[in-house]
């Protein structure tokens, strides 16, 4: 199952894009309570949002983003059936990508 959920909503000719990604977003300074060792940093560094083939958001993220990150953006225009693609890559080089059509 994909780690990325995408929701779109048409509002007065605009399209709101919301996304929820499941990711631990560990910043590397937390202690594991059982072993007393530091939990290694593991967080998303890059997030990309595409509208059809155009990149509309290109972002660099730090570990200051909360666990299971949520983001929302507002697209001017956007038609029913247009494709929104969201992808991320983390510091351990894992990545995921998901597409959804505007409803």
């Amino acid at each position, binding site marked *: 199952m994909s780690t990325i959920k995408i929701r779109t909503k048409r509002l007065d000719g605009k399209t709101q894009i919301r996304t929820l990604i499941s990711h631990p977003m560990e910043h590397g300074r937390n202690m594991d309570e059982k072993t007393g060792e530091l939990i290694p940093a593991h967080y998303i560094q890059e997030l990309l949002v595409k509208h059809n083939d155009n990149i509309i958001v290109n*972002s660099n993220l730090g*570990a*200051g983003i909360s666990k299971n990150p949520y*983001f*929302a953006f*507002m697209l001017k225009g956007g038609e029913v059936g247009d494709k929104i693609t969201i992808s991320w*890559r983390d510091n351990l080089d894992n990545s995921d990508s998901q597409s959804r059509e505007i409803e």
Partner: protein
Amino acid sequence: MKDIISVNLNNRRNFLKKTTVASAYAATIMTGLLASENAQAEWLADLFAPAPMEDSFNHSFNTNAIALSDEIKLKLPTIAENGAVVPITVTSTLENVEQVYIFVEKNPVPLVAIFDLSPELDAFVSARVKMAKTSDVIAVVKTQSKLYKAQKLVKVTIGGCGG
């Protein structure tokens, strides 16, 4: 093969041209291309290093003097019960917004995120950030020509270090 790469490069360039760090990107684009299809550019590790707020500003913008603007609206709770999840929405009525930066002043790493927004988007970003303790949250908006900021104090009753 060569053609494909150069076309890709051009697309990337056009988008990246807008960012202040285009030259830094240019050198890393090739490695990014080879490393992963999804990753568009190398992550800006320098900017996300632990540092005091002032240094973080200097690093990101080469200046500390950024004008406050009424045209940036920050939607944040006054009191955050849980510092691990603090919702933030940045909106702006400024023209030609290209980038939105979010900083939490008292976090070990003040810079939380940089969003490069294309002209297709409204100046609107929502996210959820961690806050180690009570601190100012600062949003910096970069338009074509200038930098503006807005800030708001958020009181945190439980720190966000616990992830």
